[in-house]
């Protein structure tokens, strides 16, 4: 058979495959079975044509066309897996807490965050050790603003403005968390963001807990108690997940850097998603419970203790490894 005849003979099949690829577009699963089976047959035939193109001695342009055709059909046949929801229960309640409990990066970030936070809080609480520390961190204007806004705090907001504030907190805080996660890939910028947040927050807490802050101090404590545990944990989780990825390509542990990065990124995603969920929970509390002037302080305290207990159960009880090291959870 001549090449010209061969091309003429095969073209209708190639064109049919191309048409089917276009028609099926986004929904191969919903196409009728006959067409799917026809599609698969044509795909195999095109694969065979491509594989044998050299023996057929097809001209290069036709070969290139076949590459495109097979590539396109390949993408229709092998489709994205989506989020496999049926395996989520195990992932959320078994794998993720164990991952978090065992993770060195999260422990490092926890120590750095709380260390800087407590140091900054002490330095701005105690005015004699480093006079003017809080002014240097937050700024004089910022401190005035804080005192002012917490000074006139009280009263009750309506359901409407509570929902609005919840939306605002989700948007604002979760975005900061995700940004911190992403910046941690380059480690140093991530640490800058993390340390800045820790020192700033610490300084604000220190100032607000000073006895000379008056009514603002009381209101501030009243406001931050309830949502604190979830929000601060969320920041640490996001940064820890980011640090895991950042260190993976620096200390690749025997793998090649790219593979180490890919593997760790896949592991870190559940942690950062956990952080997003915590940000959302914190925002709900921050929107509806924290600003309530009438809500008694012990009530808010109970919310804080309760949420801390929940976190403890999740991280420690669920996260405590079944057996050191590896154990049954490795799937062997």
């Amino acid at each position: 058979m001549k090449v010209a005849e061969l091309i003429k003979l095969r073209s209708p099949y190639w064109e049919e495959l191309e048409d089917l690829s276009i028609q099926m577009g986004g929904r191969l699963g919903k196409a009728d079975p006959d067409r799917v089976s026809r599609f698969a047959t044509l795909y195999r035939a095109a694969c065979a044509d491509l594989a044998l193109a050299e023996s057929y001695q097809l001209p290069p342009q036709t070969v290139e066309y076949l590459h495109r055709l097979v590539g396109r059909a390949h993408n229709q046949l092998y489709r994205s897996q989506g989020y496999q929801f049926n395996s989520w229960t195990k992932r959320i309640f078994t794998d993720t807490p164990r991952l978090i409990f065992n993770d060195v990066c999260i422990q490092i970030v926890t120590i750095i965050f709380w260390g800087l936070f407590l140091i900054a809080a002490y330095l701005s609480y105690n005015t004699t050790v480093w006079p003017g520390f809080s002014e240097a961190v937050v700024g004089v204007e910022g401190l005035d603003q804080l005192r002012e806004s917490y000074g006139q705090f009280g009263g009750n907001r309506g359901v409407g403005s509570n929902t609005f504030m919840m939306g605002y907190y989700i948007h604002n805080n979760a975005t900061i968390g995700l940004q911190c996660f992403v910046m941690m890939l380059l480690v140093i910028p991530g640490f800058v963001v993390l340390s800045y947040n820790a020192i700033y927050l610490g300084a604000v807490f220190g100032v607000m807990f000073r006895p000379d802050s008056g009514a603002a101090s009381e209101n501030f404590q009243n406001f931050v108690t309830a949502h604190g545990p979830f929000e601060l944990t969320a920041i640490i989780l996001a940064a820890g997940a980011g640090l895991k990825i950042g260190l993976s390509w620096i200390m690749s542990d025997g793998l090649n850097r790219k593979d180490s990065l890919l593997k760790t990124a896949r592991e870190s995603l559940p942690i950062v998603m956990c952080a997003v969920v915590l940000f959302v929970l914190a925002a709900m509390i921050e929107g509806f419970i924290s600003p309530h002037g009438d809500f008694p302080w012990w009530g808010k305290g109970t919310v804080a203790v309760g949420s801390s207990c929940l976190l403890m159960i999740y991280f420690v009880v669920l996260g405590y490894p079944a057996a050191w090291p590896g154990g049954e959870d490795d799937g062997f």
Partner: protein
Amino acid sequence: MSSDRKFSAAETESMIRGIGGLDRPQVSDQNDVIDTMMLVKTPENISFQYEISGPFYRFVAYLTDLIFAFGGYFAAVGILYFLLVVFGLLIGNALNTFTFFEVLAGIGFGLIMVGFFIVYWFYGAYMETRFNGQTLGKRLCGIRVISVDGHAIDGVQATLRNFFRFLDVMPIVPLQMLLGLESQVLFALPTFLIGLVVMSLNRKFQRVGDLVAGTVVIFEEKKYRPDLIEFEDERVPRLAELIPADFVASQGLTQVVAEFAEQRVYLVPQRSADIAKHVAVPLMDRFGIAADTDPDLFMCSLYHRLFVTQEAGESQVVTENGAVELSLPVSVGEGIER
């Protein structure tokens, strides 16, 4: 080859696994990208090529997505706002209270904030998971995200590569700094510098997000199917008859002839003759064709002979399901003499 020759890791591995020979080139992660073509091996054990998409095409797709996602978002916000005003005020008036409107407005704006967060961080992840590696913009531009190993991407990869876009658009320059304005409102202009630099540093044009998720963006537009070239000149078939019937061209020669025939339309006659003569003159000499024949014409005749009149295979049979069974044509290594 001396017996104490050191083997490279790839060679040792190929010997252990029994694939390839010592002298066969190994297809590895390093050299599977030639120009902008990426080699993919399918489960059917077929290798085929994808053309990798460069940054500027992808930028257009990204802009389209921005317009689509945030256009859609702001349209939704507009409708919500309209409904809010109409119903909130109407019902509020009927009940003779303003509180109802206030509550609705609060909930509405809360939803708007959450919506913005979701669209900003999760639009790309959702679209790429749902539509097999394509967002709307990518679909319009004919590009698609796939895994570096050629498989479709999964939800985790889609989410990761879209999260890390935040790093790719860095550094963000405040617009008022550029314009020297003293405005309080912050308009930030993403420069995409990190993404661009990282893309230019690797062969698959992967940005940071792609590296983290192990994905690559490829072209997938319809490509026209080229027909065999037919020459108007009637000297071509006549000259083709002068080529001996027992001449079998090697694969290399066949490819050279086809490439030449496809490219010669872009060349001036003098230049195409110059290029053709390196292959044509020795062959004409061998076939006993007059030396003053135009080499360009001879190459066209050879093309005609190889692809239009010569029998390529013996017995290709198309079975009823469209597959092909054949016995391979035997090609003798009759290469170009040098």
